[in-house]
């Protein structure tokens, strides 16, 4: 950990939260507009950003966001999949701490819980909030819903689900 946790500190700016959502979407293979819709009263992007900063420190998060920013501005443009593969260092047998942080960010969105990256020695595994669970996205990749939280009607289970894109997945891997 490069700086002490700030326990959230002041609310990040709208632009920072949008950047974090864009980066998260690329890392996870989801549509950015799905995880951060125009009207977003729950604001998981902001909550997760602050939570991650509190865990690993502002300096490390700023470095990751800068790396994402640089990759996003490359010409010719990289696809979302290429950005994810680069940040996650998928071809490296020994991913850096920054790549390990990316893993924790994916897990946070997918599973609603914080799984401390290996370098965070005092990290505690925890469910971040009730809404982090009820909006967790691994279930969407199954074209389903979190167990215990469904908005589908009686009998939906006897018919096939809608397409994966309806569940927010960026199936094309592009931007």
């Amino acid at each position, binding site marked *: 950990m490069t700086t002490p946790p700030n326990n959230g500190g002041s609310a990040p700016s709208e632009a920072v939260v949008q950047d974090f959502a864009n980066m998260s979407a*690329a890392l996870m293979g989801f549509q950015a507009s799905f995880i951060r819709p125009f009207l977003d009263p729950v604001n998981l992007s902001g909550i997760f950003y602050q939570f991650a900063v509190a865990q690993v420190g502002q300096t490390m998060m700023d470095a990751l966001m800068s790396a994402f920013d640089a990759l996003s501005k490359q010409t010719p443009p990289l696809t979302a999949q290429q950005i994810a593969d680069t940040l996650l260092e998928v071809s490296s047998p020994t991913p850096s701490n920054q790549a390990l942080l990316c893993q924790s960010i*994916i897990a946070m969105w997918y*599973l609603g819980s914080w799984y401390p990256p290996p370098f965070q020695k005092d990290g505690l595994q925890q*469910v971040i909030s*009730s809404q982090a669970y009820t909006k967790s996205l691994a279930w969407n990749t199954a074209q*389903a819903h979190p167990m215990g*939280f469904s908005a589908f009607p009686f009998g939906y*289970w006897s018919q*096939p689900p809608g397409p*994966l894109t309806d569940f927010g997945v960026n199936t094309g891997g592009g931007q």
Partner: protein
Amino acid sequence: MSNGASPQYDVVIIGAGVSGNLIAKQVGLAGKKVLILEAGLPVPDSREEYMDNFYLALAKTPEAPYPALAGRTGNKDHPVGKLPDPATLPTPRATVLGLGGTPETSYLVQAQSWVATHPDDPAPPQNPPTAPNGDVRGLQFSSTFERNAGGTSWHWLGTSLRELENDIRMWTKYQHAVDWPVTYDEMQPLWAKAEKEIGVAASVVQQEPLEVVGLEYPPGYQYPMGPIPTSIVDQTVSQGVSGLQVPGTLPDTPGGSDPQMYDVFVTPTPAGRNSEPYDDRRVCAGNTNCIPICPIQAKWDPTITLGKALDTGNVTVSYQSVAYNVAVDANNKATSVDYYVWSRDSAGKLQKESKSVSGKIIVLAAHAIENAKLLLLSNNWKGIANKSDQVGRNLMDHPLYLTWALAPQPLWGYRGPLATAGIESLRDGEFRKYRASFRMEIGNEGWNFATGDPYTTALDFIQGTDNSGVNPKKERLGGTALALKLNDLLTRQFRIACMFDQTPLQENRVQLDLDSYGKPVNTDGLGIPRPKVEYGFDTYTMEGFRMAAYVCSQVYKQMGAQEFTKNNVGGTGDFTYRGVNYHYYGAGHVVGTHRMGPDPYTSVVDSSQRSHDVQNMWVVGSGSFPTVCTANPTLTLLALAFKSADSIIAALKSY
């Protein structure tokens, strides 16, 4: 009452669960005064409180929503949070997270035989020991239960199958185990009453194929509401097993063989969840969460019946009231119940106040293990109602064998109620002379039960591990590649759970955790000795496991599915039979500890669940089942509670 005063209540009931609440309601409707002593907390004002406990629990075990046990943060030593010591709690209970633990985390003191044979050896052997007759002893009893208003059936699945005729006459038909002291014909109207109370969704026409195992309904019978639709998982398995037959026994089954071929087919499961609005409750929305908690109470639970009991105006509940003695006079009459009312002071310290209450009739409805514990605790820990020496014995479960596989095409689990169909066609046959019968439940929750998915597989592909068994190359993925990989795997996952009609054994038992001087070893926070359990399987039961593993593999093979079942060795819930490892889970179906029967010398209660020895005391619930049978027990234990209620109301006329 011991001073000659009139009893304070007509009926004192210990426990506000399935049986206790139903009897309270029926007796209250008859105009009699009832007190329920409930050890735990009241039903919360809103189930949102329990839902939040569930959402925030790291391990979403059956106990997760109910008065919190584990902290919400984990670390290396306690991945799902540190468990409280049962010795500090007023109403500790058996929990999934406490399984395999020492008495510092496990309420049930598990009397594994290595403790007895190797007192100086802290490490269990690699496998549980085998007795000379082939039985495996020293196994962990893996079922858990709740102690709060509503009881364990807060998290029942809703499965409302009836027992089969041969389930309840095993000795007469197959010369194995024992008969029940009630007939199939006698049970029919009782099941109908229970189905109405619950609101069971099913279709008699859909159940008709099960005539091959002896399932019959009275002419013209209809369930209270139409069936719950089957899932795509069910439909896929149903098509996949078309034409499949399996033999009654495998080669070299001890005792004999049943070479007959039995058809394997799928039928929808009668369910205690609404297919239409019923009793002012809404229809099932398929939250896939019947266990641990239905978020919308579309599934019946005993709190609904408790509400109706209170509405009679004749029923009172005393919460946080833990019974520890039933006083019996020289005429074998139960006179009063002694109990502690517990509370916590402003500093959080546990306080208790001892009280006593009298009733014309006393009903123990505290759960199979807690009923046995209370009977053994009474009379200064010498026990009551135990002329037969059967109190606490014959402890049974539906030991559950879980198998799982990937289908060749998506069948979209993680949707709908947890289970909507099963393979019931193998529940009866001549093979029951030689091996345990079983039912097979098809799950709609992917590999959630099997591997903890979607968590395990998702983390495997995020972190490059292979705890699921589906990432042997330990790939690390991100972006769309990750989402599509998970989509491919999660939508093809399914599982089958087999539940066995295990043999009742005298040595499988609940006792008080006392030392050889009669002093308590482990107690709860009120100072009450805790239950110590001994458990094991005979070869008849284990031969059922062998057959179940074979049948599941045949099902997967015929479907073109790839099986991923993993059986460990040497852990709690593991055993080895004929060189093959098996892992079993508890089903929560705790049975047998105060068995009913016609003979006071071989059973604890009669067919009305009335004590043979103490005439004004009833001991009710699944503990009265002489055998665990092949259906999930809630419907039948509720049916038996109707019979008990009628006998209690009749008996009150003479008191």
